[in-house]
């Protein structure tokens, strides 16, 4: 079979003057374990697009909601993607806070985040242009907590989850923003 090098640049590196980028994330994200996903559909021409996910039917609970309504820190502030030259991968960091205290919350939320490494988080961008409006972190490698800090001055756990993945961005996207939003809302109904 003939050798084919990696695909080359196939688009303009240009800003959209008529449709400027709206920055930031919405306050609600989803977290789940990849092992709890029953089936998934990936786009045939671009494996970075997850078109659909299915979870076990109710009453089984498999999706957690991350709700970060504060304006300071801004919703999921600290979330970023960085190319790593040494590993040739993209290091993805998702950061959120959690105000739960006590032994039950520690047992149910804080400690499991560090004990497992197959978490997937979906965040909704404020920019509703369709592909890219729902950003998926950890689908390829799985997220795990790399930093968890709690103090009474802030009053919350600041949780940092990280992974390294070969593709720069994965998205939940099917047809258009409205269709994708309907799926996201369905997943929210499966929450704990």
């Amino acid at each position, binding site marked *: 079979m003939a050798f084919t090098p990696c695909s080359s640049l196939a688009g303009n590196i240009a800003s959209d003057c008529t449709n400027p*980028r709206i920055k930031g994330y919405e306050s609600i994200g989803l977290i789940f374990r990849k092992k709890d996903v029953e089936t998934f559909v990936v786009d045939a021409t671009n494996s970075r697009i997850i078109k659909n996910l299915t979870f076990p039917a109710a009453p089984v609970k498999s999706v957690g909601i991350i709700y970060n309504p504060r304006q300071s820190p801004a919703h999921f502030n600290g979330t970023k993607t960085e190319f790593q030259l040494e590993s040739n991968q993209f290091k993805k960091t998702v950061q959120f806070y959690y105000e739960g205290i006590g032994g039950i919350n520690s047992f149910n939320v804080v400690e499991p985040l560090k004990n497992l490494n197959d978490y997937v988080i979906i965040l909704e961008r404020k920019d509703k242009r369709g592909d890219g409006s729902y950003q998926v972190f950890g689908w390829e490698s799985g997220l795990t907590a790399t930093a968890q800090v709690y103090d009474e001055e802030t009053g919350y756990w600041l949780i940092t989850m990280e992974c390294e993945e070969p593709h720069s961005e994965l998205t939940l996207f099917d047809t258009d923003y409205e269709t994708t939003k309907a799926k996201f809302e369905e997943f929210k109904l499966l929450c704990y």
Partner: protein
Amino acid sequence: MSFTPCRGITQNITNNCQPRIKGFEQLGGIVDKRFIIAIGVVNNGIRELHLYNGFPIYNPRQSPKPFNGYKVEFNPETNCYKKTIQFYYEGIGAANAKNIIDSLKDNEFMIVIERKEKLNCAFIFIGAQNGLHVTEMVEDEDTGYWLITMETEEPASEISTDDTKIDMEDFINGEEINF
């Protein structure tokens, strides 16, 4: 053939009383080195260039300024000039990830940018000798863009061409450039 050592300076090291106009224009061009059919550099000038499939890099913001991070540093260890160029990209989503971000990290490129100072050789060719590769790419919702840093090390401190020779509009629209 008799031995000829490297030549010395042949020009005065003086500054022009006419002040320098600093900065770069908003529009640059980028081409994967695999689409450069021929390139000839003589005395740091492009004398021959044959390429196609170029794309624009359009950085209209004033903060960061267009191609603000561009710099050239002599590296005594390699006896070459390390060239760094930085630009941003606001595209999001899986299609842009596939078409732009992931392909930038997988290939080598040449970038052409244009100085605001129009003193005969306003167009700078970066990566013409060795090819640029990505060293940093960072995206977050605080800035709302990918900040992309590309680097190369080349023997020539700067490579440029006579302004009449390159048609940037043709170049960034993927058309064939041949001179």
